[in-house]
C-alpha cells in the first residue's frame, strides 16, 4: 500500500473566485487502489483532480507523486501527465482530432513515439475499450457512451500509471454507465490506480474500495464506503443522499430487524442477509445451477456456440469490453451485459445454468467473486471453465482496414 499520489494541506482560490475552492486538503491515493472522491457539485472535487496532474498549481501546500513534490516546469509537467492520465467529464472537451484514430493517437504522437509504436498504442487502446473498427469515424457521429470510451482510449494510449476520471458516468444512460464502470474495474484489476470523482453515491458505494467525502473545499471524511456512507449526518452535511440499499439496511438494523455488521453491497447479498435474519440461515433449495466460465482470449467462437446450442446454458453474459467485442464478432446473443456475476449467481440459486464470457485478468476476478459468495452464504456454486478448443482461433484479430 505505497502512497502514489498525495496532497498535503493544499489550498487554492480561483483568480476571480469569491471563496477558496480548496482549503487545506490532504489526501493519499495508494498504488492500485480504487478511490472515489465524493461530493456535491462545487465541493472542490474537480479542482482537486486538476491539481493532481499539474493543470492547477496550489496556492499553498504541496502535491506529491511517488513521494516527490511536483515540479511545474514544462518538462516535468509533460512527464507527470503521461503518468497521471486525466479523463474529462465532457468527452466533447477532450476529443480533439477529427477521427477516432487520430484522436487516440494525439497523446502518443505528442510523446514522440515512432509511427509504428503510435499505431500499436492506438490499436491496443481501442481494443481495450472495445472500439475496434471505429478508427475512421468522426467523433460527432458517436453516441455519448462511445465518445466517453474514445476519451478513455486517448488517455490509455499514453499508458499512464494512474487514471483520473471526473464524473465518469455523468449524462450517460444506465447501460453505458455500467459499461464505463466495468471498464474502470477492468483497468483497476489490471494493476492501474484509478481515481474517480462523482456525486453518485450509489456508484461510489458499489465500485470504490476507498472513499473521500468532500464539501466546501474540505475533506469531511475518508474510509471504506460502507463506513462513510452509513453516517447520515456526514452525508447530509455533504448535501448527499445515502445509497438506497445501505439506507434500508441501516434502518432495518436500527429497528433490530437485522443484525448490524458489514452492510451488503448488492441486491443478492441483501436478500441473503434478510433470509438469514428470518431463518437463521439461507434455506437450501434444489441443486444450484452451474456457472460456465469462458476466457475469450483462449476459446474460439465455435466452442461457445456449440455449448449454447447444446441447451446446457440458460443465460449468457459477457464481462469486459474485449469480451463484448468478441461476442459481437462471433454474433453470440447476450442476456446480460452488466452486473453479470450477480445475475448469474441469482440464476444459479434458482437452479439455472449460465455462461460468463470474459477475458484475461477478469477470469480470476469472476472465480474469486463466486467463491466469496459461497464462503459468505454457505451455498457453493460450481464454476466450470469452458475447455479450450483443440485449434484455438487467434486471440486477437488484426486491426480492421
Amino acid at each position, binding site marked *: 500500500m505505497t502512497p502514489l499520489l498525495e496532497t498535503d494541506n493544499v489550498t487554492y482560490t480561483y483568480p476571480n473566485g469569491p471563496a477558496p475552492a480548496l482549503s487545506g486538503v490532504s489526501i493519499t491515493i495508494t498504488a492500485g487502489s480504487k478511490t472515489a472522491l465524493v461530493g456535491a457539485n462545487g465541493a472542490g472535487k474537480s479542482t482537486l483532480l486538476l491539481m493532481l496532474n499539474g493543470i492547477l498549481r496550489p496556492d499553498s501546500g504541496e502535491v506529491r507523486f511517488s513521494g516527490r513534490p511536483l515540479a511545474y516546469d514544462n518538462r516535468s509537467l509533460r512527464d507527470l501527465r503521461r503518468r497521471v492520465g486525466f479523463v474529462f467529464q465532457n468527452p466533447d472537451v477532450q476529443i480533439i482530432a477529427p477521427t477516432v484514430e487520430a484522436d487516440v493517437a494525439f497523446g502518443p*504522437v505528442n510523446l514522440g513515439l515512432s509511427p509504428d509504436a503510435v*499505431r500499436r498504442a492506438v490499436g491496443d487502446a481501442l481494443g481495450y475499450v472495445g472500439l475496434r473498427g471505429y478508427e475512421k469515424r468522426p467523433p460527432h457521429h458517436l453516441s455519448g457512451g462511445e465518445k466517453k470510451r474514445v476519451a478513455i482510449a486517448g488517455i490509455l494510449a499514453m499508458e499512464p500509471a494512474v487514471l483520473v476520471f471526473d464524473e465518469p458516468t455523468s449524462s450517460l444512460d444506465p447501460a453505458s454507465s455500467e459499461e464505463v464502470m466495468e471498464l474502470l474495474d477492468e483497468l483497476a484489476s489490471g494493476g492501474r490506480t484509478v481515481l474517480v470523482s462523482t456525486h453518485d453515491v450509489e456508484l461510489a458505494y458499489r465500485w470504490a474500495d476507498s472513499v473521500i467525502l468532500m464539501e466546501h473545499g474540505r475533506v469531511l471524511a475518508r474510509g471504506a464506503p460502507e463506513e462513510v456512507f452509513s453516517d447520515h449526518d456526514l452525508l447530509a452535511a455533504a448535501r448527499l443522499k445515502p445509497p438506497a440499499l445501505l439506507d434500508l439496511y441501516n434502518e432495518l438494523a436500527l429497528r433490530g430487524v437485522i443484525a448490524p455488521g458489514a452492510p451488503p453491497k448488492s441486491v443478492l447479498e441483501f436478500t441473503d442477509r434478510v433470509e438469514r435474519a428470518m431463518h437463521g440461515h439461507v434455506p437450501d433449495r434444489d441443486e444450484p445451477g452451474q456457472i460456465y466460465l469462458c476466457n475469450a482470449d483462449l476459446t474460439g467462437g465455435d466452442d461457445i456456440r456449440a455449448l449454447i446450442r447444446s441447451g446446457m446454458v440458460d443465460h449468457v453474459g459477457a464481462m469486459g469490453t474485449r469480451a463484448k467485442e468478441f461476442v459481437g464478432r462471433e454474433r453470440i446473443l447476450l442476456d446480460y451485459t452488466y452486473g453479470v456475476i450477480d445475475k448469474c449467481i441469482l440464476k444459479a440459486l434458482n437452479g439455472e445454468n449460465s455462461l460468463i464470457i470474459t477475458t484475461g485478468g477478469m477470469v480470476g476476478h469472476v472465480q474469486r467473486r463466486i467463491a466469496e459468495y459461497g464462503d459468505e452464504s454457505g451455498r457453493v456454486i460450481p464454476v466450470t471453465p469452458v475447455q479450450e478448443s483443440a485449434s484455438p482461433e487467434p486471440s486477437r484479430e488484426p486491426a480492421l482496414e
Partner: protein
Amino acid sequence: MYEMLDDFAQTNGLRGTSPGLKLFLGLTSILLCVSSPGPVAPLLVAVSLSVAILVLARIPPRVYARLLLIPVSFAVMSIIVILFITESGTVLVEVPGLPLAVTADGANLAILLLARVFGGMCSLFFIALTTPMTEVFDILKRLGVPTVLIDLAMLIYRFIFILIEEAGQIYRSQVMRLGYGRFRESVNSFGMLAGALFLRTWESGEALVLAMDARCYDGKLGIPGDARPVSYPALGVVLVYLGAVLAVSLKTGGLLLI
C-alpha cells in the same frame, strides 16, 4: 438549420473507394466544366455525376434535389445582369419602355454559364457527398500542404460540429419561447444567439487549451495516415470518362444553342 454534406460523405455508397481517386475525378470535372467553350460538356458532367451521386453513392433524391436549388438564386441574378449587359447579336426580346434587350449573344453566354455552374456544382457535390473531409486531410498532408494549416483546419472541423449543434439547440430553445416572431424580435433573437454562441466558443477554446495540455500537447496533431490503394479498373473507368468529357468539350466547343 443546414444539412452538413459531410454527414452523408461518412456513410455514402462510395465510402470505400479511394478518396484520392474521387477527389481527382471531382476536381478534373470542375476544371473541364470551367474551361469548356460550349455548354454540352458541362451538362454532360452535371447529368453523369448526378447519376453517380444518386445511384452509386445512394444519396437520397430528396436531399439531392434540395442541394441543386442552392446555386439557383445566385445564378439567376447574375445571369439576368449578363443578359442585359450583352448588347451584341440579334435582338430576341425587348423590354418595353426601357433600353433593355436580350440578344442572342447574351442568351448564349447565359446558357453557357448556367451549364458551367451546374456542371461545376454537381462535381463539387460529388466530392462533398462522397469524400469525407477527414480523408481529405490525409491527402493534403501527403501533398505537402503546410502542417500548421492542416492542423488548424482539423481543429476547426472538429469544433464546427460542436458549435453547430449548440447553435441548433440555442435556436430551438429560442423558438420554444416564441423568439423570431416579428422582424424586430428576429434581429434581437439572432443577436442573442450569436452572442451566446460567441461566449460558448470562448469557453470551448479555453477548455481545448486545457485538454490539449492535459494530453501532453507538443505541437503535433494527427497521425501518419495510411494510403488506400487505388484500384486500377476504377482508375481506368475514371480516365476514360474524363477523356470522353474532354472530347465532347472540344467537339462541341463552337456549338451555339441559339
